[in-house]
């Protein structure tokens, strides 16, 4: 396993974790742009653009793009979040050069008006699909209410209204400003010919002009309170709570992740013993979301409506009691679980690409899986308990969605 990196003159980063023992490679274009980089009137443009990228380039139609992806037998996809847009494919080594060529071409899409209108219908279908799934748009609503005017409150999908109002011209402007080579990285893991990768990328992307795309990373101010969405036909009640937590750059993020695991992992945590093992909740958990400049700790459960008040009280108590400290045994179990998860995921070429690319997106220096496992092993009980004191987990904002309209968050 060898880590390699290179930067083109225009700022495009090339990263690879080369593994000669692998039998295929995963390759992705990582773009440091997402919903937080949108304006309120272009809500959803990052995600819509991710779809439009596959609708063709100046020289390729949408059908041709899809045929080329399938001709290479690729397992390909794309994803958009608040902070990133990633286009990726897993392929046999013989397809490295043509896949780099295709994805590089796609990063400069045609964005044709007629494709734009057809794909808009697909995006609205996707919004409707999520609106039919629990908690029926509750996550987006909670993020919006928690962050208020802060850009992290922007929904990744956008709304039917913002997507309907989007124009191809606005998307072209967004693309021109955000898909700048200094805001992008080509990331590869697995059986990789790195020298060819540099040469091909230079030839295909070296002439892209750099725009110095930036990002507003001011910390968010939480907007506490309770949002209630009544859905009478739901069979279960869903509750989510957001509290401030460490950002991607915070030194205490490893300790915070271990604290979340101790309190709210799906196995062996306090939430597990009190809410899942007892059968009180159908699902429940606590986990961190780290962004540039800001972080969140989300707690959630879903349960039969007549158990929701009891579960709310338990979850609140678990979050409140974190300040009283966790035990060395709880920490040891959490460490073992994390280290094992790191080992298991490190065997998958695709997850290695996301790890390498994710570290670049967050602006971190590359660490191997073993190096990251060591960071978790070094976290002390004192550090975990410090985190619990520093981040009051029961504060913040709550959203309840389901048939019960009078669920309240204590305090």
């Amino acid at each position, binding site marked *: 396993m060898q880590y390699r990196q290179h930067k083109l003159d225009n700022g495009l980063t090339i990263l690879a974790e080369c593994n000669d*023992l692998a*039998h*295929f490679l995963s390759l992705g274009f990582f773009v440091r742009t997402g919903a937080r980089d949108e304006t309120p009137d272009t809500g959803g443009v990052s995600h819509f653009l991710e779809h439009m990228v*596959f609708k063709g380039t100046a020289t390729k139609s*949408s*059908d041709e*793009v*899809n*045929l080329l*992806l*399938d*001709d*290479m*037998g*690729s*397992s390909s996809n794309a994803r958009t979040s608040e902070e990133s847009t990633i286009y990726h494919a*897993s*392929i*046999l080594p013989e397809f490295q050069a043509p896949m780099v060529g295709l994805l590089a071409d796609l990063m400069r899409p045609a964005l044709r008006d007629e494709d734009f209108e*057809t*794909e808009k*219908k*697909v995006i609205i*279908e*996707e919004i*409707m*699909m999520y*609106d*039919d*799934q*629990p908690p029926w748009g509750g996550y987006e609503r909670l993020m919006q209410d928690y962050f208020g005017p802060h850009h992290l409150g922007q929904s990744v999908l956008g709304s039917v209204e913002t997507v309907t109002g989007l124009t191809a011209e606005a998307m072209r402007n967004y693309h021109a400003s955000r898909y700048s080579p200094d805001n992008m990285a080509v990331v590869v893991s697995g059986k990789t010919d790195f020298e060819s990768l540099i040469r091909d990328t230079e030839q295909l992307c070296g002439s892209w002009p750099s725009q110095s795309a930036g990002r507003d990373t001011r910390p968010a101010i939480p907007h506490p309170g309770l949002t209630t969405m009544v859905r009478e*036909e*739901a*069979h*279960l009640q869903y509750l989510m709570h957001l509290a401030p937590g460490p950002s991607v750059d915070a030194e205490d993020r490893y300790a915070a992740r271990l604290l979340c695991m101790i309190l709210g992992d799906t*196995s*062996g945590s306090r939430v*597990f*013993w009190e809410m*899942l*093992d*007892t*059968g*009180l*909740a*159908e*699902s429940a958990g606590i986990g961190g979301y780290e962004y540039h400049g800001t972080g969140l700790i989300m707690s959630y459960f*879903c349960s*039969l409506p007549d158990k929701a008040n009891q579960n709310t009280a338990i979850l609140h108590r678990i979050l409140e009691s974190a300040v009283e400290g966790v035990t060395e045994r709880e920490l*040891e*179990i959490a460490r*073992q679980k994390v*280290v*094992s*998860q790191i*080992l*298991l995921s490190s*065997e*998958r*070429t695709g997850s290695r690409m996301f790890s390498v690319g994710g570290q670049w997106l967050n602006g971190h220096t590359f660490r191997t899986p073993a190096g990251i496992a060591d960071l978790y092993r070094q976290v002390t009980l004192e550090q975990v308990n410090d985190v619990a004191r520093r981040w009051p987990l029961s504060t913040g904002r709550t959203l309840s969605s389901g048939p019960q309209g009078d669920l309240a968050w204590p305090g």
Partner: protein
Amino acid sequence: MKFDDRLFQHTYANGLTLVADHMPWLHSAAFSIAIPAGCKLDPADRFGLCNLSCELAFRETESLSSRELVETLDLLGCDYYSSTSVMCTYFGGSLPAIHLAQALAVYADVVRNPKLSPAWLEEARLSCLQEVESLEDDLPSRVMSRLRMMEYGDPWGRVTEGTTESLQQITLDEIRKFVFDQYAPQGTIIAVAGQFDFESLRDLIGSLFGDWKNPATTAGGPTSLATAELEPHMEFPSKQTHIGLAWPGEPYDSDDWFRSRCAVGVLSDGMSSRLFREVRERRGLCYSVMASCHAIPGRGSCFGYCGTTTDAAQQALDVMIAEITRLKEGITPQELARLKVQVRSGLIMQQESCRSRVGTMISDWLLLGRLRPVDEPGRRIAALTVEQINSYVSDHPAGPFNLVTLGETPLGLTGAIPTTQA
């Protein structure tokens, strides 16, 4: 990549079978114990018995408390699960290979000595009741569950979770009897994939399970009921109409399985597949559209799904049906070439996942009665010609169809579409 000499199997004197795939390039291992105690054995008024039994069995053993059980597995780094299907109850997990022996010892205890204590009965029941209600909030699952029952009838179309009413009826004695009768070595498969030494593994399983005997006669077979007349439409105030379609396919052990699989692949595998292109890409009628092959012993079916807004739903269904029925006109050499490279890539990528291999080995054993060599699907599909597939699709035009919809308004199969529905 070497595919030969990887698979092992051993049957113990008590009828238990070990199947294993040696993947020495991994540092992890995965395992699953598949006991032939599926929900097809649930009595007609006790749907969910198999699932509730599994839930209770995993909570406590004669020697390990609930907390000891979970903490032991967590400390081994084991990502564990227990689940049920129509055919089996499964206990399994994946973990660093160095801990495999310790985890298997815990699972031997779970399977052989579950405490089935009254102290946990109501907690376990409540968990199962919540699962039932959770499925009600999952609209595509509701559609596909009803469609499976319509397609396969009882018991193969059953939902393993049971119903709220039936779960409330189940007693501890019934659970104990189910576990006592059905958790038996005869017919049970332990599948292991990843890094291990087979001889050591075989001896370890022998020491943990070799003296496992079940004094009861493992009575019980499918308690088949006449399939109730099921409504093809569920009226619901949803944003989308959810469409499920089923039509006859091939059994997993049929020579025609791979030809049927290729035909459905042309419909649904990849971004250039016909359903994706015609329903989503060209017309923008949906976000999600797909088709797949599914099999039960001796029988196979093809299933399709699409979620689409109410106004677009009838058109989406019409286009789906048109594409599925158009298959009989044949596929192109280019479509087959793409499928072959996709299958080859998929096969190689699957070699990173011991968990995925465990699942495949169990399916093969249950539906074929043997382990299928790792590269057999790739070889069989690589050997297929366009003519062979086209003669199959011409001789087996898709239909008759079962249709289930959920949404504001019902849809219809328009034109001369063969249907099993009145």
